[in-house]
């Protein structure tokens, strides 16, 4: 009986046996990576991969009534104080010398005060603003925990259960579209009324707009009203030079709008 007992494992043997165990780890972690069906809101009811939402805004049609901003606050329980907005309306007054005067008292919810008589107006218009749901969103890029993300239907969302409240995304947004929710202490912003659009409804601001200055729809879908809007208007996006690839398209926006 010359049974050889090896008590020592060489480095080579150790690594080899570890590599054998490697496929097993995949087996254990498999349940942690949910398949497509697990992620769907209701199985079969709504497929987010089939949508890519966006919005069009017709500056010529906006009358600055501020109903959109007000409806948004109600629909999404945005704090009523005047420094928290998911959407707001700006008034631009262009003087003959090309100078632009801009204001947005209470986001335009209470309307706009009369201008003084000594302000000479060359032209004037209203610009509704909201999150641009950028395809190349800087806020998504900087979020340290991935609480801000682009959903598969192209909407930039914040997971309020996950956000640590560092406010880096607020700093990174070039459009001032984000704020820190004073009670929840997390970043908050426009969701295109995600709870509505996934049920086939349109966002609250679009619903209440009396002049149809806001058009909600989908990029790349021929039957979408947005398609027609983009086709028949000269479109600009805000701060295009920053390469954020916004998905809120403005028709008739002046070069002064930023």
């Amino acid at each position, binding site marked *: 009986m010359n049974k050889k007992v090896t008590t020592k494992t060489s480095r080579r043997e150790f690594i080899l046996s570890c590599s054998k165990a490697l496929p097993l780890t995949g087996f254990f972690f498999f349940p942690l990576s949910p398949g497509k069906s697990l992620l769907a809101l209701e199985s079969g009811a709504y497929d987010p991969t089939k949508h890519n939402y966006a919005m069009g805004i017709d500056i010529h049609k906006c009358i600055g009534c501020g109903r959109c901003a007000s409806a948004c606050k109600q629909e999404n329980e945005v704090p009523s104080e005047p420094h928290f*907005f998911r959407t707001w309306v700006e008034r631009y007054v262009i003087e003959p010398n090309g100078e632009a005067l801009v204001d*947005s008292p209470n986001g335009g919810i209470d309307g706009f005060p009369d201008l003084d008589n000594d302000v000479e107006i060359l032209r004037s218009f209203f610009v509704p603003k909201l999150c641009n749901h950028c395809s190349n969103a800087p806020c998504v890029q900087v979020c340290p925990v991935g609480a801000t993300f682009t959903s598969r239907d192209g909407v930039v969302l914040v997971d309020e259960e996950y956000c640590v409240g560092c406010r880096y995304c607020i700093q990174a947004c070039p459009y001032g579209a984000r704020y820190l929710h004073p009670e929840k202490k997390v970043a908050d912003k426009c969701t295109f009324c995600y709870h509505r659009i996934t049920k086939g409804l349109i966002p609250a601001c679009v619903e209440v707009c009396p002049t149809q200055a806001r058009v909600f729809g989908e990029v790349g879908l021929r039957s979408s009203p947005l398609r027609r809007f983009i086709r028949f208007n000269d479109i600009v996006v805000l701060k295009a030079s920053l390469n954020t690839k916004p998905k809120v398209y403005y028709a008739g926006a002046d070069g002064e709008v930023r």
Partner: protein
Amino acid sequence: MESIITTVAGPLQDVTGYIYPNEFELHWELLIVLYPYLTGLVAGAFILASLERVFNVKELKPVYRLSLLSALAYLFVAPLPLLAHLGHPERSFEMFLTPHTQSAMAMFGFVYAWYLMVVLLLEIWFDYRKDMVIWSREKTGIMKYIYKILLLGAMDISKKSLLFDDKVGKFITIIGIPSAFLLHGYVGFIFGSIKANPWWSSVLMPIVFLFSAIVSGIALILVFYMITTMFRWKKLDMQCLNKLVEFLIYAMIVDFSLELLDFIQRLYESEESINILSQMISSRLFLSLIVSQIIMGGIIPLVSLVWARFGQVPNEMRRIVYFIAAVLVQVGIFSTRWNVVIGGQLFSKSLRGLTVYKIELFGLEGLLMAGFLLLLPLGILFVLTKILPPWPDAETKLEQS
């Protein structure tokens, strides 16, 4: 023009021009000013220590250990302002568990842990090991056990093992230099990579941060060295002081030139944002940028240091000038951090208006908290020096074995 401004301002009297409604609140406040200030001191103090260790600047031997311990004390405190500022501090560990790899901020935890665990703690441990072994034999009571625990059972002080300590220590310092650059350059990158903010967005940001860190670190150690030596009734090593001041002068010149370059470049490029930024500098930031950062914290100390170091000045006078200049430099660097962090939020991203920052006194982000966080490292340093005395005369001589 005036009329529309008052209507815009309405309840917000301190706002001039137009700011986006969500910009009314400043999001990064005093605590975030502290964060780059504190990490800057860490990086600066460490780089100073590495001058002695790696580049063999023997004159700096008396402050080598003091700089390491100061770096450690400040590093302990550096993440606290970040933590206190979070909306949900209890979720902060998510940055470690599920970091978003594209985010500059997500890397903070890793850069920090690397620097603390791999660089600073290890270097200090290897540097003090011999002394700790001897102290653990000589001291009595609780201190004896503190050293025994800190030593983790590594009691060998044979010639061979001490040589090993020295080798490893040097190796860690060599790794430590790029790590210190990484630590603070990275903090600069957090700001410099925000393209939405023209005041921050600059490739020079990490480099400017780095050199201002070196400036602040050297000045801090200069102050610490002078104060601690005074309170221990010892004589200041004038050679060491002179060397410190020389390095401080070089670092200040580089730092100042870089910032000037950044300034000239912006002015010359004259981009869209230049109007609002110049307005901001001449109104909101006049005190903190022109007066505090450039004149009081830059030009005056630099000129007086050059005069005191290279002029025909008696040592007594030299020391006084060195001390006052180093304190002024601290004020200047703090203002630099202030101007970056707060300045970057005083103008609207619509580039049409300016807002103001009002410091709170109480609360997690208030003045008192900031004061506490500034004093806390001093307390930690005090405790550290009790356990690991960094003084040149405290170093043990190895008895014949």
